[in-house]
């Protein structure tokens, strides 16, 4: 019976020949590799990816790149205008602004990425669990989320910083203690929708385990949502850090961060505008690059948009 139906060995040979000639099978190497190929075609996103990689490299190799120690105070050159010695000038303590921006990237980037990735992991896990299992589990997680959502973000972060003391770790906590809720809500919604899809039912009809359904059915289809949440969340975290530092409760001087630099520069904005503009540009470039790269990544993960 089976021989009769599946007896297409000759055609099979033809197929293999065709594969060799057109490379149809060779062209395909899995969902993620395929997505990467699509991403590579998006020039703008690739450009932004390079910019981001450069920024990250700058953060890693800051001691090698910075011309001065960011905390070295040169009182002979206070609030100097840009010159060959100090390309972006110096601040009110005579510290080199370029070096401070280079070192500041360490704080901003690590806070952005680490805080957002941790928050997303928590959010995705809890959201997926709530959406997939539903019932009591969902009710409990949803109630917790509602409690967290009842706090205004910035004021909550300020309260935590004041309560727990200033420091990088506390800043992480303050920044992301609330944002996982947004991720969790989105993921819960998509998982609830996806698990009713017929292709998930088809997998179940074949005896697929929960693990299979989550990894093959749910995650690839949620991925674009997650990616967008993460890539939009990182610049958001960078901005938050800047706001908190600006308000004087973020990273404490003399450790440089883009946020506290802008905060310090505001006094001198009319006298030495370049002092506040430069860290502002750094924030802007990073935020825009993350946003465009995130959009590109989302498109690349959706096979429907393949042109």
């Amino acid at each position: 019976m089976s021989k009769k139906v599946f007896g297409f060995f000759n055609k099979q040979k033809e197929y293999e020949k065709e594969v060799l000639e057109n490379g149809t099978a060779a062209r395909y190497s899995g969902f993620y590799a395929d997505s990467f190929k699509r991403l590579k075609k998006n020039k703008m996103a690739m450009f932004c990816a390079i910019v981001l990689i450069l920024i990250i490299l700058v953060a890693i190799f800051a001691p090698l790149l910075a011309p001065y120690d960011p905390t070295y105070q040169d009182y002979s050159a206070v609030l100097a205008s840009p010159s060959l010695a100090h390309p972006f000038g110096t601040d009110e303590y005579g510290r080199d602004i370029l070096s401070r921006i280079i070192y500041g990237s360490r704080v901003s980037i690590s806070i952005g990425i680490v805080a957002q990735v941790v928050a997303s992991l928590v959010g995705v896990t809890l959201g997926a669990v709530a959406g997939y299992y539903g019932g009591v589990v969902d009710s409990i997680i949803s109630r917790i989320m509602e409690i967290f959502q009842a706090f205004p973000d910035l004021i909550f972060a300020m309260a935590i910083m004041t309560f727990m003391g200033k420091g990088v770790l506390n800043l992480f906590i303050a920044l992301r203690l609330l944002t996982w809720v947004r991720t969790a809500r989105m993921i819960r919604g998509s998982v609830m929708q996806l698990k009713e899809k017929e292709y998930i039912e088809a997998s179940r009809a074949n005896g697929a385990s929960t693990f299979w359904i989550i990894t093959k059915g749910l995650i690839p289809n949620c991925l674009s949502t997650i990616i967008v949440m993460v890539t939009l969340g990182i610049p958001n975290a960078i901005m938050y850090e800047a706001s908190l530092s600006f308000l004087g409760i973020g990273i404490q001087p003399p450790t440089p961060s883009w946020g506290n630099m802008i905060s310090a520069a505001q006094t001198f904005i009319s006298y030495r505008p370049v002092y506040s503009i430069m860290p502002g540009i750094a924030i802007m470039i990073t935020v825009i690059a993350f946003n465009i790269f995130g959009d590109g990544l989302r498109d690349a993960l959706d096979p429907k948009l393949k042109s």
Partner: protein
Amino acid sequence: MNEKMSQAPLLEVKHLRKLFPAKSGFLSKEKTFIKAVDDVSFTLMPRETLGVVGESGCGKSTMGRSVLRLIQPTSGEILYKGQDFMKLSGADLRRVRSEMQIIFQDPYASLNPRMTVGEIIAEPLNIQKKYSSKEETRDHVVKAMEVVGLNPKYYTRYPHEFSGGQRQRIGIARAIVLEPSLIVCDEPVSALDVSIQSQVLNLLKDLQSSMGMAYIFISHNLSVIKHISDRVMVMYLGHVVEMAKKTELFSNPSHPYTQALMSAIPLPERHSKRKKIILQGDLPSPANPPSGCIFHTRCFMAQEICSTQKPELKDIGGGHYCACHFCGKCQQGE
């Protein structure tokens, strides 16, 4: 060998029920249920096609899914090749599931948009860990694609690149790749264009004659049901109202609902002489079904007894079952 097999039923369903909890008022303790499938029993022989016909909300899809335990039935018995399917779990359940498949109505929703055609068709093989090597799996998928008339060069394409008919072929390839003995077809052609419908119906028939699987074919379209089925079950509000061999049912429809359904299909012919029975009113809500005979609110020949007493599904001769107080007495509407 075939003879022996054909004597033992492939599937026996007894008193299958599925209740869905209905929304009750906030904080109210009282629980109400929607009887989506109520006391459905049938047997299915190997290589047989049982057509299930009814309007939306009659419970035919829920019934199909309950048989596969995609929806857990509330009560009832499902015997698959003599073993109690309801009690299976773990590895046993997975093994039996490899012999039962489902084809869905919506060829757009039933294929994972993030998988290629090859991955979709290979999924059942991978879940069941049928082959250890990727090459073997791929070869098998390619063969299945050819059987359903898909060019294997589409192996690496994504489902959104295909038309409805081709997508339905992908769904069929996924269903046959494990060579199952039972496929539940849930409205497999109703989302397709007419010219594509006939291609898919022919394909399903061909596959049945070459691979020998049984179908539970669910459709709202009586003409399609008549074309493909051996036996037909008519459902209304979760109940079986009539069940018979196809030829018997279509030559001698005994339940007034079946008669009305038959007369309501618009036929592509002018000035047809058949008498139209146009039912009045809408389908009652399954949350609050009528008392007595569930059909009496729309029945053109309802009597007093119909609103008080529920008619049994009884054999009116030759395996023709009908649930009406007057069946046999009232053929063709009089």
